[in-house]
């Protein structure tokens, strides 16, 4: 198992280096003089330009700049925001928990609702439930997130007044950010009002972000179950006199989980894309919102560092999915 892990890590390294290279090139590809871009100023007099050039190391040959960049990365220096003067890495880790909290809730929502629906649809193949679920699933996967999010706000927040419109928690509460995860911090602070407020702020964004993964998970579960249910060993299980529920849950699901887990893992990328939109709509103070603002404010070091961090995250998650796959499928293990 360890050998498998090491092998997979080895395969990632070249990709990682290539990604850092692209990130490195970003500042130089963006319109405008790279020095002015880095400094965040325009119309800089020539003497200051030369100063800046030297300060940012832009008078070195390209390959040396790249190596310096790599060295910086390994020290955890991803640059500084032009706007806030804050370290990009620091800002990222401050905002990241909000995005994780939202994403994790969305995935949980997608899996806890989508999987059972998919299993039932497979078992009741061809029924009204099956067609209905597949119809809803396709519709869910076709929704433009901005529209879906804003409509939900319109209906549930504005018309019914059940949920808040934006943010993570009502302004009435101040919660000490211990972990950065609002739900955990609220629970830690023992403030029931805050907990309800945090939860109610989470509901709509979770549903909006989780809709597309829900559709994908339901569909994948259904098709994986259909395939597994037609396998020989399911017939053997029935020939042993086992009940329908046991056959489905113990024998079939375990095998169907393998492709479904892979799909869930691959959803991370699309989840982050969705998070960008969802955070913008709900003014959710996470990484996605941060990146969009960075473009609007031309804060390119943030865009550069943030993109690199997210890409690294996706690579790590893919690695995690591989390992889980190896665990679930005994055939790969040895």
């Amino acid at each position, binding site marked *: 198992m360890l050998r498998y892990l090491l092998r997979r890590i080895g395969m990632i390294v070249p990709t990682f280096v290539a990604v850092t290279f692209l990130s490195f090139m970003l500042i130089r590809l963006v319109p405008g003089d790279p020095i002015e871009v880095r400094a965040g100023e325009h119309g800089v007099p020539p003497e200051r330009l030369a100063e800046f050039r030297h300060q940012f190391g832009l008078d070195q040959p390209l390959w040396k700049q790249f190596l310096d960049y790599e060295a910086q990365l390994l020290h955890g220096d991803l640059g500084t925001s032009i706007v806030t003067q804050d370290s990009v890495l620091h800002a990222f880790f401050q905002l990241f928990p909000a995005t994780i909290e939202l994403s994790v809730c969305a995935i949980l929502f997608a899996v806890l609702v989508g999987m059972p629906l998919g299993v039932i649809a497979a078992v009741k193949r061809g029924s009204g439930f099956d067609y209905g679920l597949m119809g809803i699933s396709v519709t869910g996967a076709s929704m433009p997130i901005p529209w879906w999010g804003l409509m939900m706000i319109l209906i549930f927040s504005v018309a019914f007044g059940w949920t808040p419109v934006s943010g993570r928690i009502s302004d009435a509460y101040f919660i000490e950010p211990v972990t950065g995860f609002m739900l955990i911090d609220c629970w830690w602070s023992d403030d029931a009002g805050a907990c309800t407020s945090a939860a109610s702020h989470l509901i709509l964004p979770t549903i909006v972000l989780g809709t597309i993964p829900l559709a994908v998970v339901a569909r994948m579960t259904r098709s994986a179950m259909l395939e597994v249910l037609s396998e020989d060993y399911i017939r*053997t299980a029935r*020939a*042993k*006199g*086992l009940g329908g529920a046991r056959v489905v849950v113990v*024998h079939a699901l375990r*095998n169907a989980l393998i492709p479904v887990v892979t799909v869930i893992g691959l959803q991370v990328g699309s989840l982050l894309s969705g998070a960008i939109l969802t955070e913008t709509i709900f003014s959710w103070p996470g990484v996605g919102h941060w990146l969009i603002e960075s473009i609007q404010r031309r804060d390119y070091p943030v865009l550069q560092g943030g993109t690199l961090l997210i890409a690294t995250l996706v690579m790590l998650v893919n690695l995690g999915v591989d390992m889980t796959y190896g665990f679930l499928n005994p055939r790969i293990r040895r």
Partner: protein
Amino acid sequence: MPLLEIRNLSVEFPTARGVFRAVDGLEMTLDTGEILGVVGESGSGKSVTMLAVMGLIPYPGRVRADVMRFDGADLLGLSPRQRRALVGKDIAMVFQEPMTSLNPCYTVGWQIGESLRAHNAVPKSEVRGRVIDLFRQVGIPAPETRLRAFPHQLSGGMNQRVMIAMAISCNPRLLIADEPTTALDVTIQKQILDLLISLQRERGMALALITHDMGVVAETAHRVQVMYAGQMVEEQRTDALFAGPRHPYTAALLDALPERAVGHARLPTIPGTVPGIDDRPAGCLFNPRCRFATERCVAEAPPLAGAAGARARCHYPLAAPVAVPA
């Protein structure tokens, strides 16, 4: 009273091109301790018959019969719970493909144990001991270590032994073996067959052995049923069948055996193909391929003719051994 009694069984599958009759008007009886060989080509319906007995016909198949009784109990009228109590316990089945018939995610020991636990055959504490004992009975060496093996770590022969162990774990009265050796190496085939026979003798089980290999049947079965295109076309005691087949199809099958074609220049074959869904003859199903077919055969479906225990579905059952023209 026979252990298994079937009269006029039919199994149909609706398809895009019409209804397909996999089994048509089948009769079968099996007594305790008897070995019945069920022989036929691929597509003759022999597996489907046994799946129908087990209640394993998948949707959208339909099973109908005048009589389908096991030990006096009507199989068709069973509630799902009653059926589950019977299947895997009193009636057990061994399938053809051992490599795909076991769940790849669980150890073989666990899968056999599941059978024991599901039917409460032994107290929980004794399950492990019983599984080891079963492994020993089916000839799996080093049973204690094999318990934790996964199916993909075992060979085809080993997996088939595991399947057999699983099937006999709750001491079934009837064991159905659906082509148990077809997917195995020739050297292993004999071992598995011998195992089945010895288990049958020790436990006094009835054994329904499905195969397309006449040679296997000759050595092991007490009685033989020959199936063609979903129908039973002949039923006799083994020695009588081999000495004097009554149906032309059986005769042709026997003639195609290399052992019996000594002295001929060519191995005789049966011209034509098994009827599918589109080209089922109105009269006798075998008539397009039969040497002896007459107009009566084309027009009229033959009933089962002959004395009990030696019957053939033919208008002109063969009386004496037929010699193949050289």
